[in-house]
Structures are given as structure tokens and as C-alpha cells.
């Protein structure tokens, strides 16, 4: 691990100032992703800014209109077990609990979860080619081991999937990511936070170097009470998703009134396709309608040697979850 200086930030402004003063500095929250990658030599910050002592960033509060405001330093566990989250946004709670393990969720922060790095086999491999780790070196996953990689949103330079479970319900619910830098505060819609790899796969998120995530806002969504997160993986627990589905649905008199749907394990960014949702609205809540919606999501895929199976698996998972949820809703 490269040597680094440790700085303790007392406030958000303090953290932003330290970042702005030092190109080589990184924030550390739970450290579950960063410390691991520092050991691998993938992350080599010269300064770490510990943000854990900043007060006021651990609260989870529900507003009168039914939205959530979640502090960036709230632990993944605290949010997953929060009674309001469990009752009003079950898919957020389920997605968090489907990720990692209790030990990791206790340490992991909400802000850190949004920014966790991909889990492509070649990313931490020193001797492999990876355009995220070493821009311009190439991508060994395209013709190599790509079972965990994406089939949507890939480019000839990178096919790594976004691994976050949490990001899927947040994407489905149009969450807003609040950030603060030396120039003040910004609110970033979560769909704008993660960038497609394109020609610059190393440029991953729409955050300036001096900006820190302070909170995640989830707007009210009455149908989110009837939501579910289903994760399919190589073992029952403690594994990243091959395919996952975050879904909420409203059904009135047998007709779909609203759908919110994001799919994991398949996209280079947390994947949602509003066209598919729009196509389902107004249709009878049947497997045919869900299946037609799923087909829209996967109308333009690029499968690789080891991950083509995900397309059918994901479509079937979508149909299954929406069918179960609409059964519940009747």
C-alpha cells in the first residue's frame, strides 16, 4: 500500500477544502471498498480525509409528504433496518440486506455505497489490461472471463457492470444525490451520477474532485410500499448479483397504473428504462404485459462469451417479480 497522510475533517466545508487543496486526496467513510483497493494498489491516494467525525450526516428522516432524507454517513445497516424504510420503501431495505454481509453493512456508508467500484475480475489484476485502472491499456474482459460483466451500456473499451444493489431501488425511485464542494451545494439526479463507459471508462461519476456527498433524498412514492428486490447469484448469500430486479407496481382494477423498475448485474450503470415502464402502464397486469416491458429493456444488448445467459434470466426475473407484486396488489 502506498504511504498516505491522514487528515480528519470536522465539517463538510473542511473536507471540501482539504480535497480542493490536494489533487491526490480521497475521502474515506467506511473504507470497505477503498481500503481493499488500496491494498490491491488500484487506489493510491497520498492523503486520506476521514469524514466519519462530521456530525449531522447519519440521520434517516421521513418528511410529512412521505419522502426520505438519508445522511451520507448513515450506515447501510441503519438504513436497511430503519422501520420507515422497511414499511414505505421495502425494496431499499431488501436491496441493502442482499448486499455484502452484516459486518460490511455495519461499516459501509450510504455515500460510499453509491461510489463503490466495479467488480470486474480484471480491474484489480495488476497484470491484466483494464481501461478503468489503466486508461488506454485495453479490456481483457471482452474476450476473457465476463460472467459478472454487463450486456447493456457497454462500449468497446469497458464492459464492467455497476455492482451496487442499493443504487437500483434508488434509480427506480428517482433519488437525488446532494453534494457540497468549495463552490457550494448541488443536487444530482441519480440517473446523472453514474456515467456510461463510452470512450472514457475511467471517468465514472459526475462529481468534481472537491465535492462530497452529504445526503440522498428519496422522493415520495406511494407505490413503493408495494415493492421488492430480487437478487440472483452464484450462491444464496454474500455474492454480487448475476441479475437483480428492483420493482414497484401500482395496479387498479387489474390495470397497471404505475411501474418503477431497475435491473442490476446487466448494466454498466444502474439500469432503468422509462420506455419499458410507460409501455406497461394502462395494460392489464398480466405476464404478457410484464414480458413485453422486459423485452423493451433488452431490445439492444451486447452479450459476451460468458454472460449472454443474463438476458433471459433478467427478463424472467422481471416477469416473476412484477407478477408476484401485482398479485399482492389486487
Amino acid at each position, binding site marked *: *500500500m502506498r*504511504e*498516505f*497522510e*491522514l487528515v*480528519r475533517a470536522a465539517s463538510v466545508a473542511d473536507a471540501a477544502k482539504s480535497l480542493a487543496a490536494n489533487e491526490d486526496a480521497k475521502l*474515506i467513510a467506511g*473504507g*470497505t471498498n477503498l*481500503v*481493499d483497493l488500496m*491494498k490491491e494498489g488500484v487506489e493510491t491516494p497520498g492523503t*486520506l480525509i*476521514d469524514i*466519519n467525525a462530521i456530525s449531522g450526516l447519519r440521520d434517516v428522516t421521513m418528511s410529512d409528504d412521505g419522502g426520505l432524507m438519508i445522511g451520507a454517513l448513515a*450506515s447501510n*445497516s441503519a438504513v436497511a*433496518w430503519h422501520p420507515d424504510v422497511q414499511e414505505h420503501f421495502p425494496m431499499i431495505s431488501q436491496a441493502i440486506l442482499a448486499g*455484502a*454481509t*452484516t*459486518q*460490511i453493512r*455495519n*461499516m459501509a456508508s450510504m455515500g460510499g455505497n453509491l461510489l463503490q467500484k466495479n467488480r470486474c475480475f480484471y480491474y484489480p489484476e495488476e497484470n491484466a489490461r483494464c481501461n478503468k485502472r489503466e486508461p488506454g491499456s485495453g479490456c481483457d474482459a471482452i474476450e476473457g472471463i465476463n460472467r459478472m460483466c454487463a450486456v447493456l451500456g457497454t462500449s468497446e473499451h469497458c464492459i464492467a457492470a455497476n455492482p451496487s444493489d442499493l443504487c437500483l431501488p434508488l434509480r427506480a425511485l428517482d433519488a437525488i444525490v446532494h453534494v457540497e464542494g468549495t463552490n457550494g451545494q448541488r443536487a444530482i439526479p441519480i440517473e446523472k451520477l453514474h456515467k456510461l463507459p463510452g470512450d472514457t471508462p475511467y471517468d465514472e461519476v459526475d462529481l468534481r474532485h472537491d465535492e462530497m456527498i452529504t445526503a440522498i433524498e428519496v422522493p415520495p412514492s406511494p407505490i413503493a410500499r408495494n415493492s421488492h428486490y430480487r437478487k440472483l447469484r452464484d450462491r*444464496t*448469500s*454474500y455474492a454480487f448479483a448475476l441479475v437483480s430486479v428492483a420493482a414497484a407496481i401500482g395496479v387498479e382494477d387489474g390495470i397497471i397504473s404505475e411501474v418503477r423498475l431497475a435491473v442490476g448485474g446487466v448494466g454498466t450503470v444502474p439500469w432503468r428504462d422509462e420506455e419499458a415502464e410507460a409501455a406497461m402502464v394502462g395494460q392489464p397486469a398480466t405476464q404478457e404485459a410484464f414480458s413485453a416491458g422486459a423485452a423493451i429493456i433488452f431490445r439492444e444488448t451486447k452479450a459476451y462469451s460468458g454472460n449472454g445467459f443474463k438476458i433471459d434470466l433478467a427478463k424472467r426475473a422481471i416477469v416473476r417479480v412484477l407478477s408476484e407484486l401485482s398479485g399482492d396488489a389486487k
Partner: protein
Amino acid sequence: MKRTTSSFEVNGTRISAEFDTRTTLLDFLREHLDLTGTKKGCNHGQCGACTVMIDGQRSLACLTLAALCDGRSITTIEGLANGDKLHPVQKALIEHDGFQCGYCTSGQIMSAVAMAKEPWGESDDEVREAMSGNLCRCGAYPNIVAAVQEARAKIAKEQPDA
């Protein structure tokens, strides 16, 4: 070498030390304090052998920088027993033969102790899910689940409010 100073509590004892900023809590416990009950399995957050309590929450010592523990309170496997009186989870693991080589055992115990206070359900499936962060290469899982179930019931009886 870049150094930092931190103070925290380990098993009730106040520690103040200066060390390389890169030191993980796991290495600090094992190499600086000679508390070798906490094990290094994978060193990458994947096996749970290094599980300790930080401010009462089970955590992975291998992914925790010691410098980030400033002001916190840590409990390791060495701090669990009360003198010669074993913690109910320790007793249950022995009674149920919940290990073979024992390498994962202190992590399993720390996890099980923490789990008893977390809002999990009571089925064996819930125990397996709640304990899934602790891998056992010897495959002692069935006996570990049995031990955890017995200890959990005992703890609930002894400390109904805990």
C-alpha cells in the same frame, strides 16, 4: 513513513499509540497488542475471520484502518469471557462441536454474539443468512447453526431486554 496518533479502547483497556497510517486494526491487534485471537484469513473482507466489535457493531478488522478507530471502543474474542466464565456463544460452540481447525471460530463467535442483538428472525435460514459473512473452510456449518440457535435462546432467556 507517515505516522498518526490515535487512542481507543480495546477490551476495556485504554490504548494510545503512534503508528504507520497504513496499519489496519487487524494488524494493530495482532502485531502491536499481541491479541492473536482475531484471525487474518483473506485480508480482503471476504471471510469474516477478523470479525471484532467496534462500538458494539460487528465489523471487519482487516478493512478498518486503526487510525479510524480514534475514540472508539473495540471488543475482540479475548474480551468476551468473564474471567473463566465463557460467554454462552463460546460454550455452545464447544458443546456442539462447531469447529474443526478453529481458524474461523473466533470470527464466528463474534458474529454470533452480535447477531443475537440484531433484528433477525428465528429460523435456521435466518441464522445462515445472518452468519453468511463468516466462511468456514472446514464446513462446520450445521454445527455452527445449532450452536448459534442454542446460545441465542439462552441469551434471550437470561437478558430478556438485551
